[in-house]
């Protein structure tokens, strides 16, 4: 059921504050009905109400990616997502990536490549990397860098993060044709060295 069918009447102009709405989310495979206020972000719902504290609040402004989770298979910044807008969606958090005690290949690769120091950014990095692999767009290390640029790491583990992702990506396709978009931001088109 969509939010529109359920949200409280707002006809007339001074509708009483409807502080809570029931929405249904499938979280890490389990269907859940939850009460949310219109202003509850998906991140706060996950962390404060559902106690899934894997997704981290870094900036709360869409800048760091620490809160990245998968919504219907796509990576989103959960801090900038109102939960109510995602009524009916499937949400996967870092807690849902592993199968019991068996680590997800990305989790193992992050350990093998020493792809973190403090680990605060790591759940977001791994969820984002999972989204990137599902998108099947990245072919080169440069593509990985661009498509992971929404996930910051204050500890600066970037090169190992890229290596870990490349390893898991490479399990599907190890294609390194050297093409990339690392040539700087000056792009001129129309027959001249167009950057694609």
């Amino acid at each position: 059921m969509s939010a529109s069918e359920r949200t409280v009447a707002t006809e007339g102009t001074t509708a009483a504050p409807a502080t809570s709405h029931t929405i249904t989310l499938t979280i890490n495979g389990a269907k859940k009905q939850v009460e949310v206020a219109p202003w509850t972000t998906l991140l706060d719902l996950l962390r404060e109400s559902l106690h899934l504290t894997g997704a981290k609040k870094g900036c709360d402004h869409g800048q760091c990616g620490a809160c990245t989770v998968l919504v219907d298979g796509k990576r989103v910044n959960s801090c900038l997502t109102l939960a109510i807008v995602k009524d009916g969606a499937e949400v996967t958090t870092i807690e849902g990536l592993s199968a019991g005690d068996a680590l997800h290949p990305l989790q193992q690769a992050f350990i093998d490549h020493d792809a973190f120091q403090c680990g605060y950014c790591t759940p977001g990095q791994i969820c984002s990397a999972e989204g990137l692999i599902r998108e099947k767009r990245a072919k080169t290390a440069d593509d990985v860098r661009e498509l992971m640029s929404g996930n910051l790491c204050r500890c600066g583990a970037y090169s190992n993060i890229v290596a870990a992702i490349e390893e898991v990506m490479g399990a599907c396709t190890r294609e390194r044709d050297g093409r990339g978009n690392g040539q700087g931001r000056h792009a001129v088109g129309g027959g001249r060295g167009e950057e694609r």
Partner: protein
Amino acid sequence: MSVSDLRLFEMRRPADLPDVCAVLAERVSRSEPTVLLAGGTDWLVEQETRPAFAKEAALPLVLDVSRLPALRGITLDGDRLRIGAAATYLDMRRDPAVLARAPMLERMGRDIGAIQIQARGTLGGNLATASPAADGVTALAAYDATLVVHSVRGERRIPFASLQTAYKRSTRAADEVIVAVEIDLPPAGSPWIWRKVGTRRAQSISKVALAGVAVREGDRLTRLGLGMASVAPVTALLSRVRTLATSRPLRDLTAADIDAAVDADVSPIDDIRSTRDYRAHCARSVVRAFLRDLGAPV
């Protein structure tokens, strides 16, 4: 304070465009705060600095327009490209018509924030927030795009040149919904430029950005569209540069003339992101670089 402490508001997903227009008209006439939420990448972040809703008479109403069919979709009809106001930057980056006919838009989209922001942010939101640093608006300025807006009074078209009036002010009325932007495209393969100067490649706001599209016939430019971000209270259209560069053969353009036109067209300031002098310097060099690529001996 954080976004988790967002002030009270009510939320609704309207059925269709007439529904949005009707609700908006009624509420605007009563000065009741109403927000159209597309990607939320500007609005949610802004909530921290906005005056408290509590002092306002009525509970603000947020209308989720992100999935309204009338605002989505990208279509090419002959040489006219229409991009729904709620289409995302990622939609644009992946659209075959954009890739083939408006590659500058794809290139600009790549420089918006990072992938998570591109998957949510829209041109409608970029236009409505109306920051002079807005990259999408800058690209639309270069294409001399037309805004298609709807209200209870019907449809209206706003040419880009008559859109922006002052810092974050425009000729769009408070009850007008941005439905789409339309671009009369230059021929396929026409030259273009997108150059964003920021502190880093991702997640940075432009210190200066130049968008340009041109049509060249022999040694002359028959069309030159330019937009520049972060050098004036509104997106700069660089009208003196446009006039100069289309008024004579490219070989007769001089660096001094171009620089003078740029200087007259921009009025940069010192702020947290850059200085007036550095911005003026960047403005001159990126314009010269584009005209040089087009064949001017500068």
